[in-house]
């Protein structure tokens, strides 16, 4: 038996058109490659 309020809270507001710039700017673009590069850099420095 689903709970209406709980289900409702799972729905998220959709991004609006005037938020595109913000969405692009604040999008976390780090990927595993970046992390690995940083890790390897750290190891090398040690």
């Amino acid at each position, binding site marked *: 038996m689903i709970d209406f309020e709980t289900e409702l809270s799972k*729905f998220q507001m*959709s991004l609006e058109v005037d938020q595109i*710039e913000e969405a692009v700017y604040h999008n976390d673009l780090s990927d595993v490659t970046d*992390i690995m590069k940083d890790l390897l850099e*750290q190891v090398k420095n040690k």
Partner: protein
Amino acid sequence: MEMNCPYCGSNIGVRNRCNHCGEDVTLFQRAYRIANQYYNEGLRKARLRDLSGAILSLKNCLKLNKEHTDARNLLGLVYYETGESVSAIREWIISQHFQEEDNRATYYIGLVQKNPSKLEEVGQIIKRYNGALTAARQGSNDVAIIQLKKAISLNPHYVQALQLLGLIYIKERDYNKARKCLVRASKIDVANATTLAYLEELHMLQPDGGSQKAKENTLDEGRKSRNAIASGNQVILSAQSYTEEKPNIMAWVNLVLGIIIGAAFIMVAIVPGIRKNSVQSESTELVALNERLVKADADLEAAQKEKESLEQDVKKLENQLKKVQKELTEAQEVPEEDKTVYENLMKAVVLFLEEKEEESANMLLSVDKNALELESAAQLYNKLSGQLFAEQSEEIYQSGHTLYTNGHYEQSLVEFDKALQMNPDNVDAMYFTGRAYHRLKEYDTARIWYNKLIEDYPDTGRAKEAAARLRELEKESGT
């Protein structure tokens, strides 16, 4: 698998070490291979319309290789298909940043940019969905339903809106409508965990009075969704698997070392500056785009105002023209009545010239002297009537007198009247008018005519005769 060096960006082909900077790229090659596997998985799922599954796979691909533009473009397309248009545009813009040339994302963005009304419509749809969500959270389900219906009518593929509408209908115990919404959502995204959960819930909630066929349809939709995935994908995925993504174990084994260590250093690894630089160009482009859009709007508005102003001017000029035309027409028009008056006057003149005095006098009699506005016409009338009326009045009187003598009193009155019109001082015509009425025993009228003669023309012989007739009349009438 060819790739670019993650350190210096130069093409290293399939080698494990970069010839340019000398760095070992073995780990990166492994990560990119797994990213490709995720991309292929996402593509397969998208082709089977398992859109939510495709989104998860493609996101995983991009976590491993953010520069995988095919995956990012496909993710945008999948977002667009499910109604998440802004998320789609976001992915395409980022994709364009990583690959400026020969990128399908340029085409997609171009389609949106070329059609500002479409972008505006997208904005309206999202606003309605967000408004509906807020209303539903505040307990205004009626408002939410109206907003969601409108959003769905504008974008029938808006999965989230369909799901939310289905949920609200379930809450409102309108199970048939809820089922319709959820079935529609399941046709767009066949294995969406939320949609399937609601359909199952609906099946449990459906009261006994519900249509058996409808219930079967609901279950069929759920089964079809699962079967579609199972038959189209060699890696059989159950419907439940979409609630929690269970990726390939081998893939994670390959990555385990990097991920575990990466988790430990994640706070250090994420450098805000990297993000800022990577999106700076998009932001600038977007700002420029917005400015162009605003300028275009302003130009359009100015043009519309100018058009309205010109239309008003044209309208005013048309009205003035109509007014002038009307005045001109009125000035040129001569009333029909006036025409007749002048025509009759002219006819009377012609008849007079033809020496047809009686006919000329009769014609002149039909002319209303007061209607002759032209002074020359009035003078002509006076001259002609002066020559004709006195003589013609006498002749008509004689004609009337003959009728009177023969006992045709009523006919004689017509002639006497005509004679008096031509010459109001014709006392003979006046006297016999009184006599004719006297004979017709219309004593009151006869008395008027006798008295008129006695009072207005007391010195005439007809006045004396009238006085004698008046006495007779008083005796006859017994007054």
